[in-house]
């Protein structure tokens, strides 16, 4: 048991008052001469023992009442700790939540300001011999001081300097960091105070109870308890990876009303390079999410900075969302082949199919046309060879290592296009389950024989074919094929054309945000005469353009605050000293160079701190750019996850006017003055009853 007002215990002396009165009363006896004690004596013998017992009981009750009242005034607290446990040196770690949800405006200042006030209060309440430190956490956690200090002034000024981050919340990260500090500290055990809003969090549990040392106590201090209404922009989707100049696209904007009771009317606008391009009002039901599309057209090629903005509310950080639009005349295409490339002296029938595809896309070999083509061997596929904006054309696939297949699959799932021309049926690739799953068929065998129409029964409404006229389709249907892959398990609704005889000639499947288009025959003269068809070149162009323009923009795979950004720079001989990154506030940051591959280098930056545009400069030239946004999950201020994820051993201290009292209660135990007042009351009632009976 502890006491919050220990000085009041001096009042325990008052407990002697009933005893003194009792003793005085015993001495102050009236002496009376009485005629006969016969009756009195008899009655007295029977009753005096009981009377004396009752008197002693009354005395005990009176003393108890006085004791209970005095103790109640001393504000007793119950806990297993010692009475003067505060005098033992310990670690005091304040974990301060700096996630952007803490930026919500309160009656005075923000929740973060309140959190800092609470942190200072905790520091003030710490013992003079305690080692104090502060951990600031969002998604990541950092200690403000290298090691705990007894100098409260230093800690307080450190707290003053802490700024709100734009990261999400990970209570677990903060607590784990605090436990690390305690473990490394010279001082045994300690107290960890987590000051947070305890809103949306990915943590399955805030504290790993199994790892919590027995001499460490954790306290959660929610800055506010109320559910706060907030509307946040969750996502901005640019529906094409590359926009062509003048092309009209629809920018999708998704917003969520996190209020559980109140509907919201949210005006939204799209601003590109400072110009307001469109605006709409979104009507959101309570807890409702809605997506609206803004039509957008940009005439000139270039890299454009866009921002979707909504009206400002109590939490402004999630009221803007940034995106990039690439408007370009050129589509980067990677042509991958499993066969050797064409060599001199080969006859037409010996020329590998990749030759015809490369020529179709880049006739002059200068990459100055509509497509910027690079041809690589399938064994050289690396992550850097599959930039998100490209279309991969895989001709005559043979085999691919699983990890490279994974890269290819990831490329597609992130919105990349893949055009496959299946080669001979003996290729190991047809037995590769991962490939079959990616290409949308369950197996295949080579079929050879008489020439058949390579393309019949077109899906004329499909974008690959709907630009062709009837005559052009007629021309295409005249192409013949002798050897092709008879694919099994192609979904009927995904087949776009059939080979004469019924086998699928072209089919399409969606994988993630990307698409895969598969041709059953190789474009070479050994398989038929497809490359010789006047429609071959338009077919390849249309297919690649379709794949390039479908799927979502690189912005769809958003960069979030606190998560690493990686830029691909097409120069192998880069030095870190040449590179710099400017954040949205214009501050210069130092990137790190990661993986290098043929002609390319990965440049990374670990922790973007602000939402906006991060620009990578080589010397003074901007070479890459990324839009970084806040994690929309942090926008939900309506639901506290405190009780769901709090281990039972963790105490909760409510912020507010009585915070200091509650903090002391939590540290030193629950205040039980009411119980003592009840004891006093009960003692007085019992005393009254006994006295009346007497």
């Amino acid at each position, binding site marked *: 048991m502890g006491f919050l007002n220990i000085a009041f215990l001096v009042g325990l002396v008052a407990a002697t008052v009933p005893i003194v009165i009792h003793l005085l009363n015993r001495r102050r006896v009236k002496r009376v*001469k009485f005629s006969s004690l*016969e*009756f009195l004596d008899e009655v007295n013998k029977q009753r*005096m023992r009981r009377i004396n017992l009752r008197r002693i009981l009354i005395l005990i009750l009176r003393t108890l009442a006085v004791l209970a009242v005095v103790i109640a005034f001393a504000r007793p607290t119950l806990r297993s700790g010692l009475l003067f446990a505060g005098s033992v040196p310990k670690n005091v770690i304040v974990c301060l939540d700096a996630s952007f949800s803490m930026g919500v405006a309160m009656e005075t200042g923000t929740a973060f300001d309140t959190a800092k006030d609470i942190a200072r209060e905790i520091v003030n309440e710490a013992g003079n011999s305690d080692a104090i430190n502060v951990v600031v956490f969002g998604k990541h956690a950092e200690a403000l001081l290298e090691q705990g200090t007894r100098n409260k002034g230093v800690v307080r000024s450190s707290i003053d300097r802490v700024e709100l981050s734009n990261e999400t919340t990970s209570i677990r990260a903060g607590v784990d960091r605090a436990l690390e500090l305690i473990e490394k500290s010279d001082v045994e055990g300690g107290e960890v105070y987590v000051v947070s809003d305890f809103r949306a969090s990915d943590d399955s549990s805030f504290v790993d109870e199994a790892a919590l040392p027995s001499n460490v106590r954790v306290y959660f201090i929610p800055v506010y308890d109320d559910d706060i209404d907030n509307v946040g922009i969750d996502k901005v989707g640019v529906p094409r990876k590359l926009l062509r100049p003048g092309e009209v696209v629809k920018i999708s904007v998704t917003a969520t009303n996190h209020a559980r009771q109140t509907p919201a009317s949210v005006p939204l606008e799209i601003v590109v390079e400072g110009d307001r391009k469109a605006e709409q009002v979104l009507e959101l039901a309570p807890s409702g999410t809605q997506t609206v599309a803004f039509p957008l057209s940009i005439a000139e090629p270039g890299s454009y900075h866009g921002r979707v903005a909504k009206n400002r509310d109590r939490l402004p950080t999630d009221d803007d969302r940034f995106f990039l639009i690439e408007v370009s005349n050129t589509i980067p295409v990677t042509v991958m082949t499993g066969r050797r490339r064409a060599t001199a002296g080969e006859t037409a029938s010996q020329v590998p199919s990749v030759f015809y595809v490369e020529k179709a896309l880049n006739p002059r070999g200068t990459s100055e046309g509509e497509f910027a083509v690079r041809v690589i061997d399938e064994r050289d596929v690396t992550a850097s060879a599959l930039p998100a904006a490209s279309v991969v054309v895989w001709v005559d696939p043979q085999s691919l290592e699983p990890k490279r297949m994974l890269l290819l699959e990831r490329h597609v799932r992130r919105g990349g296009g893949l055009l496959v021309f299946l080669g001979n049926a003996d290729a190991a690739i047809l037995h590769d389950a991962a490939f079959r799953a990616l290409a949308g068929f369950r197996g295949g065998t080579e079929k050879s024989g008489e020439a058949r129409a390579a393309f019949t029964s077109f899906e004329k409404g499909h974008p690959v074919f709907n630009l062709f006229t009837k005559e052009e389709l007629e021309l295409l249907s005249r192409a013949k094929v002798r050897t092709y892959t008879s694919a099994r398990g192609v979904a009927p609704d995904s087949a776009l054309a059939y080979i004469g005889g019924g086998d699928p000639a072209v089919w399409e499947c969606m994988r993630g945000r990307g698409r895969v288009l598969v041709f059953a025959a190789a474009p070479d003269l050994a398989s038929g005469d497809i490359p010789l068809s006047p429609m071959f070149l338009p077919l390849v162009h249309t297919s690649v353009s379709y794949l390039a323009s479908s799927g979502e923009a690189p912005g769809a795979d958003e960069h979030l605050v606190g998560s690493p950004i990686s830029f691909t720079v097409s120069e192998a001989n880069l030095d870190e000293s040449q590179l710099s990154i400017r954040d949205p506030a214009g501050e210069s940051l130092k990137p790190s160079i990661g993986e290098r591959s043929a002609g390319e280098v990965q440049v990374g930056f670990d922790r973007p701190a602000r939402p906006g545009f991060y620009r990578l400069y080589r010397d003074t030239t901007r070479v890459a750019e990324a839009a970084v946004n806040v994690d929309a999950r942090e926008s939900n201020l309506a639901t506290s996850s405190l009780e769901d994820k709090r281990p039972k051993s963790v105490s909760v201290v409510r912020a507010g006017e009585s915070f200091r009292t509650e903090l002391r209660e939590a540290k030193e135990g629950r205040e039980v003055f009411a119980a003592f007042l009840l004891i006093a009351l009960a003692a007085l009632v019992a005393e009254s009853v006994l006295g009346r009976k007497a």
Partner: protein
Amino acid sequence: MPYLRDKSHVSRFLDPAVVGKLENLELKARLIVEGYIAGLHRSPYHGFSVEFAEYRPYMPGDSIKTVDWKVYGKTDRTYVKVFEEETNLIANLLLDKSGSMGFPVDGTTKLEYGSMLAASLAYLMTRQQDAVGLCIFDDAVRAMIPHRSVRKQLFHILQTLDGTTPGARTSISPALHGLAERMGRRGLVVLISDLMDDPEKVLMGLKHFRHRGHEVIVFHVLDPREMDVDYREAVEFEDMETGQKLRVEPAFLREKFKQDVRAWIDTLERGCRNHRIDYHLLRTDTPFDRALTAYLGKRTRMG
């Protein structure tokens, strides 16, 4: 005494608290008796003699029967015939002067009350020409005035009563038996006592009087505080007869004490009734008229 004829004044002297303040016992007795008689419709002094003595003017309270109508016819004035008194009753007053009769020490004691009552009865009896005797006792007979009907008898009785102080512890039973044996002629025995003794022994002593042919009136004198120990705080009682000390909390045992006292009184009253003894409980704040009425009732019944 014209003053005494004013009933509103004389009735005051029936209050023991008022009479007790007077010094002279004779005066007390006279005031009590005259005050009592003044309230009666009929004088108690007549009807006991047959020999004519004199005429006197009619006074309020005199019976109409005593008016001599012949004299009224001659003189037109109302005269009353007064007859010579004649003794026809022997009365012995037995007054207990034990230590317990000295209670309380801070007011009219039971002995004072008993003395005033005895004096009043003696006065009344003397006025009625009855032979009155007095015996004062505690554990033994301390004073004895044999019954006589001479005028000086009242003086002797009052003088004896006046000098009586509380004595030793009481043992009524032997004293009563002894007195019963000593009293020769049958008569009226008036016992004034707090009866602080074993009720059975007390009743045996009284029964002894009855056995000897005496009529007995018992005036059981008790102080109100003896009946309900009305003390608020803790008290150390000292027995006035034995000197025994006892520390008690009156508040805690009052009810039980009252029950026990009531049972004791009931035992005495029931025993007296069974032996045709008139029993009268008199608290020391009880007006004297109650005792005098009881006596006169008894006297009337005895003829």
